[in-house]
C-alpha cells in the first residue's frame, strides 16, 4: 500500500502553491505508507540548462558532496550549487541532456543523480510528508504541476534511492510514482537492461519509469507508451507520470489499486483517496471520480 497524488493547473503558465498542496495531500494519506515521501515538482521550464539533484550513497566519504560540485564544474558551467538535506542541488548551464548525469556519477563514485530537468525537481527522503517538508521546504515551491508519493515499502529496502518518484532516465523532466507491485519486474528489467538501460535501484516501480523511457527513445508518444503499459506491465498498479508539459496516469486491468480524479476548468487533482483531495479542494461541488480498470488519462499544456 502506498499513496499517490497529483496536481495540475490547466492554464498554460498558471502557477500556485503546488508544494503546499502536494505536501498536504501526502500527509493526509500517511496511513497508506510512512516509510518515505517524495515529490516531482514543476515550474515554468528554463530555456537553457538543467536543474539536477544528486544523492550520495550511505557510507559516502566526507567531502563527496563538494566532489559532486567539482565534477559538475569540470564538465559544465554551474550557475548555482547548494546542499539541501541529503542532496546536492545544481543548476547547470548546459544542454547536454541526461548523459551529463552519467558523467557526474562516473566522476564521483557513490553519487546518484535522481532528478534532472529543465523544470522538474524531485525531492524525496525518509519520514512523513511534513518531515520531508521541514527539511526541504517543499511547501515554498510555487509551480504548475507535480506528483507526490507516500511509501509503504513491500519488496525493496527503505532508503532515499528506493523512494519515489523515479526519474525516467535519461529523459529530462519525466518522473513516475506508483502504487502496487509489478510482478513481471525481473523479466522486464532483464529485457530493458539488454537494450542498454540502467537501473539505479531494486525497486520494482523503477521499471515503469525505465519502460516509459524506452518507448520514448523509440520515438513513441508518452500517451502511446501509457496505453501499451497497461498490457505490458503485469501486476497491480495505479501510477502517475509527470513531464514538463503535464501529468498522465494508468490503472491496471483488475482495478486493484485506488485512484481518483477531480477536475474543473482550472485544475486537476488526483489521489489514491478522496480524503487527500478534500484536504486541498475547497469546492464541494467538485466530485472526485474513481478511474476504471485499464483507464489511461492525460492532461498537458
Amino acid at each position, binding site marked *: 500500500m502506498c499513496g499517490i497524488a497529483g496536481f495540475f493547473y490547466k492554464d498554460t503558465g498558471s502557477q500556485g502553491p503546488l508544494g503546499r498542496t502536494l505536501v498536504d495531500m501526502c500527509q493526509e494519506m500517511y496511513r497508506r505508507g510512512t516509510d518515505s515521501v517524495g515529490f516531482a515538482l514543476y515550474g515554468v521550464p528554463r530555456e537553457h540548462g538543467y536543474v539536477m539533484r544528486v544523492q550520495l550513497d550511505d557510507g559516502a566519504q566526507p567531502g563527496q558532496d563538494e566532489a559532486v560540485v567539482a565534477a559538475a564544474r569540470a564538465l559544465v558551467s554551474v550557475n548555482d550549487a547548494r546542499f539541501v538535506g541529503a542532496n546536492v542541488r545544481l543548476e547547470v548551464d548546459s544542454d547536454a541532456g541526461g548523459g551529463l548525469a552519467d558523467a557526474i556519477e562516473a566522476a564521483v563514485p557513490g553519487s546518484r543523480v535522481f532528478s534532472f530537468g529543465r523544470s522538474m525537481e524531485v525531492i524525496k527522503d525518509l519520514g512523513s510528508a511534513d518531515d520531508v517538508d521541514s527539511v526541504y521546504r517543499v511547501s515554498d515551491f510555487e509551480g504548475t504541476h507535480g506528483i507526490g508519493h507516500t511509501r509503504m515499502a513491500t519488496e525493496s529496502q527503505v532508503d532515499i534511492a528506493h523512494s519515489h518518484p523515479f526519474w525516467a532516465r535519461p529523459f529530462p523532466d519525466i518522473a513516475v510514482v506508483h502504487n502496487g507491485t509489478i510482478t513481471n519486474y525481473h523479466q522486464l528489467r532483464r529485457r530493458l537492461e539488454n537494450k542498454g538501460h540502467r537501473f539505479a535501484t531494486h525497486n520494482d516501480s523503477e521499471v515503469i519509469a525505465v519502460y516509459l523511457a524506452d518507448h520514448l527513445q523509440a520515438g513513441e508518444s508518452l500517451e502511446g507508451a501509457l496505453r501499451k503499459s497497461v498490457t505490458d506491465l503485469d501486476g497491480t498498479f495505479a501510477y502517475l507520470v509527470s513531464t514538463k508539459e503535464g501529468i498522465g496516469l494508468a490503472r491496471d486491468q483488475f482495478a486493484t489499486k485506488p485512484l481518483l480524479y477531480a477536475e474543473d476548468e482550472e485544475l486537476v487533482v488526483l489521489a489514491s483517496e478522496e*480524503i487527500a483531495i*478534500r484536504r486541498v479542494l475547497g469546492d464541494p461541488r467538485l466530485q*472526485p471520480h*474513481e478511474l476504471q480498470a485499464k483507464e489511461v488519462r492525460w492532461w498537458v499544456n
Partner: protein
Amino acid sequence: MGQLTTAATIDCEGLTTREANQRIHALIKEGAREIGIDNPRARHALAPGIKADDLTLEFHGPVGWYAAGMNDGPRIRVHGNAGWGLAECMMRGQVEVYGHAGSGAAASIRGGLVYVRGDTGARAGVSMKGGTLIVGGSVGYMTGFMLQAGTIIICGGAADGLGDSMYAGSIYVAGPVESLGADAVDHPLTAEDQSMLAETLDPFGIDAGTTKFRKIESGHRLWNFSTKEPELWRHAL
C-alpha cells in the same frame, strides 16, 4: 421525550474518527433518532457497527472508505461520495449515497439496501449474500463478482466481467455491458421482474417502466468442476 430532543448534530471538525463514532453511538444511546453529521471530509470508517431501527444518519459531505460497515438497521444518507467498501457486511438497513462510490460497494452485505446515485468503482456487490444494491449510474470492472444471493440493479452501463463467477442472485442492467463474466448468462425478464424493478426503483425517482433492463443470472456451470469444460474453467480461474 419530545420530538425535538431526538434530533442531534455532530461536527467532525477537530474530532478524531474514533471520537466522532463514539459520539454517534452515545447519541443513539441517549435516544437521538435523527443525527446530522457535518464535515466528514471523506475520512474513513465512519458510522460502523450501529444496531438500531428508526434511526437516520445524515452525512453532509463525502465519507471515506468502509463507511456504514457492519450495520444492522439504520438508514444512512450521504450527501457526497463514498470511498471503498461502502456498507460492507451490512445486515439490515438502508444506505443512500448521493454521489459516487468507490470499489467494493455493498461488499458481502447480507440484507438491507444500498443505493448509489452516481457510479461505482470495481467489484460492486462482490460476494453479496442477500439484500439489494441499486446503482443509478454505471458500474466498474467485475461488478457482482461471486454474487451468492440478493439483487443488483444497474441503471447505467457495466464494465468488463459483469457477474463473474456468480453463484446465485440476479443482476439487472439497463445500459451497455462491456462483457459478461465467467458463467454469467442472460435470462428473460419476466413480468414479476418488471414489477419488482418498478417497486424497488420508484422511491429513488427512477421510472423502471421507461427503462429496458437486461437480466443476468448464474449459468450454474461453475457449481461443479467438470473436466469436460476446460475452456470455461481456464477462463474462470
